[in-house]
């Protein structure tokens, strides 16, 4: 019997939702197991790092790694899986573009540690103890991974073959990507395994999008009753559809909420936040600077909004000095 190809799943700086996305394949996971052996999947199977270290180079067909890279341990695991895998796949927004953890690049390492371990109202830490690398307490030798200065996407650390976008990736996208890999019908290296066009092209409300949208007032979902049929941008909601890759079929819009941009930008766009900013700002219905500023004031955190998932992978990577 021909040996089945091996695949692995791993997580770094992520919330666990991407692991859930694999489970969301439901009975589809059985097809995956029928076609491939899962040799490493810490969230579900009891294999350890040393098991991976013992594997031959490139002996795993594909490793699906979710989560951004923040700590030294995550970087080591990314390098290890890179070495042991023929294809390394960035799975989900965090791995693809830095994701929500990437927003930490607005803050210094020191201020994050200070906030989490000292200042947070729910923290009791009178001696201001912070995590360190070479700890140790009496006879015990303790160490922790180093918490690095900034968050990086996977391809800023190791060579990545393919990307599966989404926060988390939808079962449909995952299934298509996995079968593409197992069938050996591989696209060009570096491809994002989803259609290369803007989400608006497959949005269920695309027919209601006016030729020219003119916005006098941006509004947030909680401030209004959202029309369930009309284009959300036309209603003044910040929908990232024009600057976001298609493939998900707009489940957020189907749930009457604007797209937040988790699938990253289409291929020709280098910086998703800048492109989203350009698309949205151009819709403002005013030629007067003061009025434009007044309309824009309804967007309280433009940087966090437009770079919600892509700050780490953006051109500036984060705030100056991070």
């Amino acid at each position: 019997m021909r040996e089945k190809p091996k695949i692995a799943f791993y997580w770094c700086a992520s919330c666990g939702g991407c692991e859930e996305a694999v489970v969301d394949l439901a009975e589809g996971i059985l097809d995956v197991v029928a076609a491939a052996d899962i040799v490493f999947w810490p969230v579900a199977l009891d294999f350890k790092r040393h098991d991976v270290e013992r594997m031959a180079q490139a002996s795993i067909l594909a490793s699906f790694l979710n989560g951004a890279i923040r700590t030294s341990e995550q970087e080591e695991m990314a390098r290890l899986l890179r070495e042991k895998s023929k294809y390394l796949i960035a799975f989900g927004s965090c791995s693809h573009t830095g994701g929500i953890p990437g927003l930490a690049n607005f803050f210094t390492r020191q201020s994050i540690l200070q906030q989490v371990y000292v200042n947070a109202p729910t923290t009791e830490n009178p001696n201001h103890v912070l995590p360190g690398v070479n700890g140790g307490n009496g006879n015990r030798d303790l160490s922790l991974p180093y918490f690095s200065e900034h968050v990086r996407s996977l391809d800023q650390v190791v060579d990545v073959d393919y990307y599966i976008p989404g926060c988390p990736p939808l079962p449909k996208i995952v299934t298509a990507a996995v079968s593409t890999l197992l069938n050996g019908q591989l696209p060009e290296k570096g491809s994002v395994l989803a259609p290369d066009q803007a989400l608006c092209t497959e949005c269920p409300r695309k027919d209601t999008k006016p030729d020219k949208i003119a916005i006098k007032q941006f509004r947030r979902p909680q401030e209004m009753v959202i029309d369930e049929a009309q284009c959300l941008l036309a209603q003044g909601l910040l929908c990232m559809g024009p600057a976001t890759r298609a493939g998900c079929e707009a489940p957020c819009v189907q749930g009457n909420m604007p797209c937040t941009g988790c699938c990253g930008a289409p291929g020709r766009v280098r910086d998703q936040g800048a492109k989203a900013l350009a698309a949205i700002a151009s819709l403002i219905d005013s030629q007067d600077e003061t009025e434009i500023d007044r309309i824009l004031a309804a967007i309280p955190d433009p940087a966090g909004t437009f770079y919600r998932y892509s700050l780490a992978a953006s051109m500036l990577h984060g705030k100056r000095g991070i």
Partner: protein
Amino acid sequence: MPDLVALSPRNGDASAAIAEPRIVGFFCTWCTYLAADLAGTSRIKYAPNVRVVRVMCSGRIDPQFVLAAFANGADGVLIGGCHPGDCHYQEGNYNCLRRARLLRRVLLAMGIEDERFRLEWISAAEGDRVREVIDDMVAKLRKLGPLQMKRDVAVGRIATPELESSLPTGVVAEEVTV
């Protein structure tokens, strides 16, 4: 295209004692670019710190251009477009204005000061205005100092045992619960 930043008087040496600001200018071909031309033919002297990129319209300036300039070492970005109402393509300068107002706030969040990103309306007849704006911007940037947004993200400061042992020894919490 030549590397605009490499042509800098500072030659990429961030440690140079006198920080000579590097400005990337995006000038509309119908107005500000002609004004700069006029400044040249009129022998108007102004600071040589701006590398000009000619664009067909200020509305063509994608915010990505501005970010790319900063990310590659520019200390400031200057956009020059036609006065309101004078756009060769009717609306382009208004679109530029809308984007610039929003981009300004994103840049502030990234730690890039207001003075580093400037939008000016300069008509083809205003050669002297080119001098005023550029000299003023250079003076302000000189005061601010270099931006230094350029970075090599791939260089992590982590993961080698030597580095880890050289890091300050932190205090590990009393109990580590697993």
